[in-house]
């Protein structure tokens, strides 16, 4: 609790806070700046010159487009799967009591607590054991493991705040299961699902580790970037793509924050 909202913080604290913020965000700004440099082989400072040519070059690179398209499709499908499974799972855990409920709750959350490398290795061995070739769907499967958690956590938090008798009231007033879901459950958890879904999308979009193990020869945007850093060719193209990635992931997270700021914590946003 703050005792006085209008009290001004002492100067050293302000300076420390400013330094902290700069430390966090200056490197990101630097990425943006290098998108406009004329030097394509090294990151030279100060910039030898200013150019917008890399935007055009990026636009015409087919590998950028295929990576971007793969990332967007993977993120969209993983999010969709996570929305369905996460909602069903959270409803089951918070709406009913059954043997092993706590265990299931823990098992669902586990993938986000486990290091990605474990999930990745586990999935890879599972795929090779069962002779499943790497494909679009193996990436989606890998991403869905942690996307489900984000949706689940958000939905569970919301379910906990919704009165259980509300669903009974809906039945009582003549609504069947489907009508109750549509008119009562969904409107009450909609913002939580939206927030969870956007976070899941953002997480999937910039995931590297699990993807490395499940993608085979395919390149999502982050994987493509790593490759680009090793082969120095038209380096600022990477920076241009990085800018786009920041935009694509930042906007949904910001939106999710605004949608749920009255009460819900955005669970799992730390990954």
């Amino acid at each position, binding site marked *: 609790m703050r005792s006085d909202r209008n009290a001004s913080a002492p100067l050293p604290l302000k300076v420390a806070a400013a330094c902290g913020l700069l430390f966090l965000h200056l490197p990101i700004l630097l990425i943006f700046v290098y998108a406009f440099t004329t030097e394509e082989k090294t990151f030279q400072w100060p910039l030898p010159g200013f150019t917008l040519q890399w935007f055009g070059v990026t636009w015409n690179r087919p590998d950028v487009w295929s990576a971007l398209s793969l990332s967007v499709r993977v993120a969209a499908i993983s999010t969709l799967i996570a929305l369905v499974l996460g909602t069903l799972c959270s409803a089951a855990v918070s709406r009913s009591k059954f043997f092993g409920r706590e265990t299931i709750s823990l098992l669902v959350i586990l993938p986000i607590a486990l290091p990605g490398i474990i999930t990745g290795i586990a999935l890879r061995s599972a795929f090779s054991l069962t002779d499943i070739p790497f494909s679009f769907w193996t990436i989606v499967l890998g991403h869905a493991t942690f996307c489900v958690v984000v949706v689940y956590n958000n939905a569970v938090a919301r379910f906990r705040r919704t009165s259980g008798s509300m669903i009974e009231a809906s039945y*009582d007033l003549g609504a069947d299961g489907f*009508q109750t879901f549509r008119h009562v459950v969904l*409107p009450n958890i909609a913002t939580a699902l939206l927030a969870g879904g956007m976070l899941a999308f953002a997480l999937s979009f910039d995931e590297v580790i699990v993807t490395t193990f499940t993608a085979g020869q395919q390149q999502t945007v982050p994987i493509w970037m790593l490759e680009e850093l090793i082969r120095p060719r038209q380096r600022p193209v990477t920076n241009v793509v990085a800018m786009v990635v920041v935009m694509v992931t930042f906007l949904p997270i910001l939106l999710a924050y605004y949608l749920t700021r009255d009460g819900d914590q955005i669970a799992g946003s730390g990954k």
Partner: protein
Amino acid sequence: MTPAVSFQGVSRHFGAVKAVDALSLDIQPGEFFAMLGPSGSGKTTCLRLIAGFEQPTAGSISIFGERAEGVPPYRRNVNTVFQDYALFPHLNVLDNVAYGLMVKGTGKAERHKAAEEALALVRLPGYGARRPGQLSGGQRQRVALARALVNQPKVLLLDEPLGALDLKLREDMQEELKSLQKALGITFVFVTHDQGEALSMADRVAVFNEGRIAQVGAPQDIYQKPATRFVADFVGSSNVLPPDFVQRWSGQKRWGSLRPEAIRVNLGGGAKGNEGVAARLVATNYLGATTRLALDADGLRLHATVPAGSALPREGEQVTLSFNRESLHLMEEGA
């Protein structure tokens, strides 16, 4: 006449817990019926059995002659006012009230008109545009009532309807519910642990104890002629008299009950034979209109209420108690 609700040997067991145990009961159409009992006595489970949220483990339930087992809540012509009101926070008051009509497919204009009328009935006209969160507890209660009544149920179930309201509001609501029930002629079944509420509102009261009904009857009968020690004690804190004591006065060795207000307290000790009971005043408790006296009659603890302004003995003083033989009620329960 077909009963509005009929229980035939109904049980509802949760594992080893017998929430409702082999219970039979008929509730008549148009009746204001109270289910009274302490928490865990099975009264709320009974209400949920009528609503359809619970299914009986054994026995059969019928609502206006139709078998109710296996019929889901949304296909029963019964509506509930929930203890926590359970209003939908994402809908405004008008859409809350119109919800039942909306899921039945009634047109928007028609259902909003019906909802307005229901709101007027519970004296909340013009509140339709507000959100449930903007209403007081008493107003939410009325909205919940309107939301149930708009469906024109054959039976209205009320789960501790006044539990969350403060005293003044509760008294107002008691009268209002009663007159509403009279005007609409709908069967009201309400659950409460407050014996005063049950006695003042209901046409008939069922007193629940441990999954069974200890007694059913008009409030006067329940109050004046309790069937068991439990009823005597739970409804209005009667003096429960042991068989030996009762035998002295009635000749029958049965448990008896004596209302505190039926006892006359005479100053001065020295009771002889069967003329009175010698007792010692232990404590006095001033209640406004009456004063409640705690008395010790040779080891038997008795309570008496005397009107305000009576001459009172001092604490520790010896008194003589007397009462009319007719006011001593012999309970069905034997020695």
